[in-house]
């Protein structure tokens, strides 16, 4: 079946460096994509979203890139901080308002 998945299970990054988290999706009909951050024992926290009619969107220290040609989504975090250590999930809308989550990618920030 169609799915959303992440390439790398764990990313270790030095504090202050930039982080890039990648996500592949296979549902070409998806039109809305979201990145969530989940800290241990907490719920998914919205970071940034992007619609399929865009290829880039910027937030505070974060940028999401969407490449519909290769069905690839990425999250860039600038100047990574210790508080950025978490699991990051990409998700896509599947159907009306049902999110399909990827498996998650652990980011570990090294002080």
């Amino acid at each position: 079946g169609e799915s959303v998945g992440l390439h790398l299970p764990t990313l270790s990054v030095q504090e202050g460096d930039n982080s890039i988290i990648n996500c592949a999706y296979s549902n070409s009909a998806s039109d809305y994509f979201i990145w969530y951050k989940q800290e241990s024992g907490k719920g998914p926290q919205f970071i940034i979203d992007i619609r399929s009619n865009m290829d880039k969107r910027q937030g505070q220290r974060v940028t999401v890139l969407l490449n519909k040609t290769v069905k690839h989504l990425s999250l860039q975090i600038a100047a990574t901080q210790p508080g950025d250590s978490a699991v990051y999930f990409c998700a896509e809308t599947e159907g009306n308002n049902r999110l399909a989550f990827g498996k998650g990618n652990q980011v570990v920030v090294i002080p």
Partner: protein
Amino acid sequence: EPEVTQTPSHQVTQMGQEVILRCVPISNHLYFYWYRQILGQKVEFLVSFYNNEISEKSEIFDDQFSVERPDGSNFTLKIRSTKLEDSAMYFCASSESGAGNTIYFGEGSWLTVV
């Protein structure tokens, strides 16, 4: 900042017992959801709810599960006759409108079935 609140944060229940998980969605939101996350796995969709009825449900959401909006603020998930494999973190979520609208999650209710 408005947030989705859930109670209890943690519940331990005996196998076969009924559990009700409670949620207060963000006040101006019209769409409500339940998701679950088994330890170490990805977040899975259970059900969406709009206009006092289920709008979509997954294959996980069988007859054991039910949802209700008993009043103007609460949204509940009932799990009848709990099984060991129901142990998971259950997240309530809400959004202002439907498809393509940001979905905000609560902190979760951790259910342990023993």
